[in-house]
């Protein structure tokens, strides 16, 4: 339950996160786009507006200049003023703006209807009827670095300019002014404390000899330009903000619909899938019923999830079947192991009332069931049959073949024939039904209990090891015939071993000698003999244990590769015979 809530909160966080990311991205891109576009627009707007103002100022200036030149003697007035100005000493000039200074020029201004009067009224008219800051006539004087006013109609408190009044203008300003004049009409922008940013256009006034007499200036305040641009910025920003918010809202809504919602549906399906599986519910269409039709990766994802769901379902069904099958086979194999073990004599001592011999044997299959087997049985009161056998291959086929071989061998043995005859008969019987071309190696011996004589025959089996009382185990290179089941019509040769009291015979399968360690080294007969001879006088049971321990130490953690089977019989002598002697 707790886990469920965690998952929900996790998915909730995810949803917020994607929407928020989209929102931030949209806002950021809109703002960056807006800023850049605003700068570009402002630049264009500013340039165009400025040009417009300059054009306007220029046309006003041209008109005024034409009126001044054609209607009055502006050139003459200019020359007169400049003449007086230049004739003055520096000291006198320093008094500019004072009544005394202005009196020096009074001859030029006092006359009603004179050039100055007419020009002043004309310019005043121009100033009143146009949206400009000022229109005036002035001349620069390079020697004194001054702008000398000729006519200025602007009435603005203290800064009224009368003819001859001058202002300092350093040579740099004059140069700037004159440079602007090179290609076109001179124009420049200047920042004045008094008037703020001014755009000034100047038109030369010449006399008839085409000499410069003065300039007609028109000042246009750039305040308007700045205000216009600020207004434009404000409006643009507002519009941009509205559009940005609109785009962000639409974008987020779209992302929620096309991205977040389908993801949440897939996530929900996944949660329900897990939940249903935990509760073993039969609902099998969590992803298949999603029906996401976005036509993009999300649709692919949902389809892939549906495929996965189906594959998992099939796999699970398959797995259930296989597991059931495995369990069944496991049970059957366990039974088979029991049956096989029960087939071999497994209670020791097997014949508690017979003290002429001691026998012990073990069989350890590499898998659940094996192909090795040992056997011993009394053929009659005086004859004990001994079998050690190894079927080719391992597992169930070997186990089935082993069962047949064991049964046939014992049946043949009970007929009371010799060892070689028994093996030949067994071979014939097995060859007649051997479809799988399997075979079994057999060492078969019959101990005559009264005499201690073992009559044995070997059908392709390992060499037996024989130990004389007080001696040690040695391999006995006995005569070998072909494995049983190999080929029809084989005759086996038999041989005899005379056992005396305390003598032992050890027989085994290649699972012992061919046990391998990690480096694929075989245990071999030498190590086996060594293990046997560690305690050659011990009981058969102890001897088997010694060999098994030696193999275990040798192979270490390597897997048991083949069935391991051993049998050891110790002849204790015929007590009756001994007594009678």
């Amino acid at each position, binding site marked *: 339950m707790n886990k469920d809530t965690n998952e929900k909160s996790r998915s909730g966080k995810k949803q917020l996160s994607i929407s928020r990311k989209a929102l931030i991205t949209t806002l950021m891109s809109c703002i960056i786009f807006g800023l850049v576009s605003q700068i570009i627009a402002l630049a264009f707007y500013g340039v165009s507006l400025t040009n417009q103002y300059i054009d306007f100022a220029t046309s006003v200036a041209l008109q005024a200049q034409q009126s001044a030149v054609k209607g009055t003697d502006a050139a003459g007035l200019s020359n007169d003023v400049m003449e007086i100005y230049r004739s003055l000493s520096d000291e006198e000039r320093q008094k500019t703006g004072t009544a005394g200074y202005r009196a020096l020029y009074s001859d030029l201004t006092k006359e009603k209807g004179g050039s100055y009067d007419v020009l002043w009224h004309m310019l005043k008219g121009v100033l009143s009827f146009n949206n400009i800051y000022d229109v005036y006539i002035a001349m620069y004087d390079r020697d004194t670095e001054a702008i000398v006013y000729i006519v200025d109609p602007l009435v603005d408190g203290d800064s009224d300019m009368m003819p001859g009044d001058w202002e300092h203008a350093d040579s740099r300003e004059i140069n700037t002014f004159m440079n602007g004049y090179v290609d076109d009409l001179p124009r420049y922008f200047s920042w004045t404390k008094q008037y703020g940013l001014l755009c000034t256009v100047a038109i030369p006034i010449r006399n008839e000899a085409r000499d410069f007499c003065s300039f007609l200036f028109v000042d246009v305040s750039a305040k308007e330009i700045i205000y216009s641009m600020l207004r434009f910025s404000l409006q643009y920003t507002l519009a941009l903000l509205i559009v940005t918010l609109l785009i962000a809202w639409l974008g987020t809504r779209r992302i929620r619909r096309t991205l977040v919602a389908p993801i949440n549906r897939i996530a929900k399906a996944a949660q329900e899938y897990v939940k249903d599986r935990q509760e073993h519910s039969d609902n099998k269409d969590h992803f298949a019923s999603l029906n996401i039709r976005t036509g993009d990766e999300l649709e692919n994802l949902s389809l892939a999830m549906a495929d996965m769901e189906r594959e998992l379902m099939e796999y699970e069904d398959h797995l259930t079947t296989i597991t059931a099958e495995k369990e069944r086979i496991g049970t059957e194999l366990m039974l088979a192991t029991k049956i096989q073990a029960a087939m071999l004599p497994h209670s020791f001592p097997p014949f508690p009332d017979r003290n002429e011999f001691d026998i012990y044997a073990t069989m350890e299959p590499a898998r659940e069931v094996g192909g090795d087997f040992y056997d011993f049985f009394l053929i009659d009161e005086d004859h004990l049959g001994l079998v050690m056998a*190894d*079927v*080719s*291959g*391992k597992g169930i086929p070997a186990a089935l073949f082993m069962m047949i071989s064991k049964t046939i061998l014992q049946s043949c043995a009970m007929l009371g024939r010799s060892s070689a005859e028994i093996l030949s008969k067994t071979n014939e019987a097995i060859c007649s039904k051997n479809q799988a*071309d*399997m*075979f079994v*190696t057999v060492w078969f011996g019959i101990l005559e209990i009264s005499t201690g004589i073992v009559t044995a025959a*070997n*059908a*392709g*089996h*390992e*060499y037996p090891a024989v130990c004389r009382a007080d001696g040690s185990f040695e391999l006995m290179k006995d005569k*070998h*015939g*072909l*494995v049983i089941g*190999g*080929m029809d019509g*084989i005759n086996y040769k038999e041989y005899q071993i005379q056992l005396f009291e305390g003598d032992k015979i050890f027989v085994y399968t*290649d699972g012992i000698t*061919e046990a391998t360690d990690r480096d694929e080294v075989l245990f071999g007969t030498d190590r086996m003999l060594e293990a046997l001879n560690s305690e050659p006088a011990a009981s058969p049971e102890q001897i088997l244990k010694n060999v098994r321990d030696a193999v275990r130490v040798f192979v270490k953690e390597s897997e048991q590769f083949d069935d391991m089977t051993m049998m050891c019989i110790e002849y204790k002598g015929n007590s009756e015979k001994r007594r009678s002697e």
Partner: protein
Amino acid sequence: MTIEKALADKALTLKISGRIDSKTAPELEKTVQDALDSITCLVFDFDDVVYISSAGLRILLIAQKKMNSRGEMKVINVNNDIMEIFEVTGFTDILTIG
């Protein structure tokens, strides 16, 4: 285990290297079974065989029985270890070793 096949007319030589045990025997069995029907002489070159288990012996047995009725079969270059296995299992009685 690796098997090198050399077919000359109807005589097939299989040069086998490594261990022939229950893990590698099925491959050898398939090679032999596939070839048996079309040849009259089968030679196993055992020069590089280090071990043969009962599963390998079974294949030799099958091949020998088949070749008895079709032509001849030989096992050549048998080293001492393998020879001992053949002797112990009595295969020396039925195989042509040389």
